[in-house]
């Protein structure tokens, strides 16, 4: 997704097309049989099936959470297709065997899976309706000892790694959607970085929902061994449907001693019709990183521009001494979008440090909430946190909310919190216009300035894409 042609992004939602491709799908509905079917279909080891069944049973006892600042009709979980895969052979020996329609879809999205045209410094795992289509640069990565493949493949090839780590960061009963994902996840990406390796190429996964009735449940896991480093990028789009699609992913990150993971997301799921609010993705995602080893670091950077509903709190458990957690977020909402997003920083180890920078931008009739928790446990001596949550309102009908929770059980902790709410004023826009700069460019310039602290955390190509996306989102949003 890093080679998206910015000049081509000019329509309201240019990813709204659907690919007509033959799929192998289950009928709607969820039962123990469905869970068993998915596991069998993927020829999974027994521990995985047991994990899924345990999660399914747990899920049956849980209720959909309602504490978030979100309004939406109850989801009928029996009205969703839990397995949908593009029909193709079990394994491809070369890209020639991949359905050309699929390759074309990704080309349209600006992602080339063709070995000749790939970017040299970015490896891509393309996930289409919950199934990994292909992963580029596999061999080059393998030679370095990096495993980057779909989680289904990892279950065949490195089951012991999956068994060791799955569910250790996000336990199956963590929350309603995580339990659901644990039971029915179909695919996702798996990354393993060997000790002492600074992965020289960026790894990225590109998620595409295509089926109108299918839910997308991916599971991503990244394990960074001692003193290793990896930068991982994630992008997402979906066609424009008048109905809502459920996306409930789980991402688990693990850093061992001295390791660092940088995880960047540009989320651009279809957000529903801007005027009527019809359609769009319900995005209920659990993302969490565990700084397991001392001196390790996990950094989340996200630009949330899509989804009808976003419920997402990428978090860090700072278990190792001197470990560092970071969360940089830009969430922009327009139309009738609702976002409830933020982070949790849990300080367990000594001298742990966390930084939270959140920028929310709302326009039209949208709602944008920041929800964050900073918890300092008893043993977390000299923990430090700095939080900054800024909201920007454009127009009079949108709303911004900030819910910062702080719990400290250690008196040596230093916690700082700053928050602000601002509005783009008519006077500011007039100032730009009087200098010959259009309203649209003025808004883009002001908003980019507002988001600068977050954009500079993104890999370069991603930052450019994010800026372009923001501009589209905010077009015609004032006056």
């Amino acid at each position, binding site marked *: 997704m890093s080679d998206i042609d910015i000049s081509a992004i000019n329509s309201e939602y240019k990813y709204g097309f659907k690919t007509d491709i033959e799929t192998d799908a289950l009928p709607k509905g969820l039962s123990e049989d469905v869970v068993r079917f998915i596991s069998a279909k993927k020829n999974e080891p027994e521990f995985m099936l047991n994990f899924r069944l345990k999660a399914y049973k747990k899920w049956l006892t849980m209720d959909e959470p309602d504490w978030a600042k979100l309004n939406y009709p109850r989801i009928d979980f029996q009205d969703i297709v839990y397995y949908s895969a593009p029909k193709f052979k079990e394994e491809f020996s070369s890209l020639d065997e991949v359905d050309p329609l699929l390759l074309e879809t990704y080309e349209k999205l600006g992602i080339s899976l063709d070995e000749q045209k790939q970017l040299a410094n970015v490896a891509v795992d393309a996930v289409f309706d919950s199934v990994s289509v292909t992963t580029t640069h596999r061999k080059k990565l393998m030679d370095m000892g990096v495993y980057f493949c779909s989680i289904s493949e990892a279950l065949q090839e490195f089951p012991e790694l999956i068994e060791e780590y799955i569910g250790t960061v996000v336990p199956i009963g963590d929350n309603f959607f995580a339990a659901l994902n644990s039971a029915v996840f179909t695919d996702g990406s798996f990354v393993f970085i060997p000790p002492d390796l600074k992965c020289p190429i960026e790894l990225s996964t590109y998620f595409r929902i295509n089926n109108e009735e299918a839910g997308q449940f991916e599971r991503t896991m990244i394990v960074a061994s001692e003193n290793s480093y990896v930068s991982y990028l994630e992008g997402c789009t979906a066609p424009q449907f008048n109905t809502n699609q459920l996306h409930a992913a789980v991402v688990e990150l693990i850093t061992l001693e001295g390791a660092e993971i940088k995880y960047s997301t540009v989320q651009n799921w279809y957000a529903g019709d801007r005027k009527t609010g019809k359609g769009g993705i319900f995005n209920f995602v659990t993302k969490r990183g565990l700084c397991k080893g001392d001196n390790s670091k996990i950094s989340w950077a996200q630009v949330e521009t899509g989804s009808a509903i976003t419920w997402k709190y990428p978090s860090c458990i700072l278990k190792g001494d001197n470990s560092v957690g970071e969360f940089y977020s830009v969430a922009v909402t327009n139309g009738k979008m609702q976002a409830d997003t933020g982070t949790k920083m849990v300080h367990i180890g000594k001298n742990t440090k966390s930084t939270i920078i959140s920028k929310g931008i709302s326009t039209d009739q949208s709602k944008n909430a920041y929800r964050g928790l900073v918890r300092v446990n008893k043993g977390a001596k000299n923990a430090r946190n700095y939080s900054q949550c800024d909201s920007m309102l454009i127009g009079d009908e949108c709303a911004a909310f900030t819910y910062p929770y702080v719990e400290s059980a250690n008196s040596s902790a230093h916690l700082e919190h700053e928050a602000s709410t*601002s509005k783009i*004023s*008519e*006077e*500011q826009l*007039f*100032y*730009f*216009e*009087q*200098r*010959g*700069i*259009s*309203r649209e*460019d003025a808004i883009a*310039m*002001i908003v*980019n*300035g*507002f988001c*600068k602290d977050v954009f500079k955390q993104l890999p370069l190509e991603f930052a450019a894409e994010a800026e372009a996306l923001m501009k589209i989102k905010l077009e015609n949003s004032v*006056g």
Partner: protein
Amino acid sequence: MLVIKDLHANVDGVEVLKGINLNIKKGEVHAIMGPNGSGKSTLSKVVSGHPDYEVTQGSVVYKDEDILSFDPSDRALKGIFMGFQYPVEIPGVNNEEFLKMALNAKRLYQGKDEISPEDFNKLLEEKLDLIKAGGKFKNRYLNVGLSGGEKKKNEILQLAILEPDLAILDETDSGLDIDALKVVANGIKEVISKDQSLILITHYQRLLDYIQPDYVHVLSDGKIIKSGDKTLAMKLEEQGYDWLVN
């Protein structure tokens, strides 16, 4: 250059301009003076197209076109510049980037290419020299953390870079101490060429000590009640507005 005829305008339903007539030719300097609330700032906002002001009657013809239906940015691109009485602060937007963007918007409108970074730097240094402003105006957010005097100086910097055909400076001298006034006034003098028209809106005669107007107009209760040459400004300084208003 600019012909204003029988201009009436409302703010929040209240009539503030009640029939303004004004004719400004290329290269002329006009001073518009008058007591508080007489409509001076309103006139500048109406000519530049501020959305809060509703024109109810009359016309504003600039370069032979009635511009009242044009967007503010179109008017700016056609060469109308307004120096703000209270320039707004815009956090997050770099002053230099802003200047470059405004200049490029104008160049594109005129069918020219965007200015190269090297040429822009050269131009900026040259203009900063001209108005005796330091590097302070480069690497900072637009008007953020500038003193009142510095904000006005920044307006003059924009004026210098954009080289408009018609500049309307709204109380550029207000809030300045005597030293700052001198710097800003000399800056305007340096920047404005004989081909450019200038409207100076001011309370006080002191700005006119530096910049000699060709005409002085007195605005009171939404109308021009007296026009004259620069001696009128001196008389106002001595006797105030009362003799005219009452």
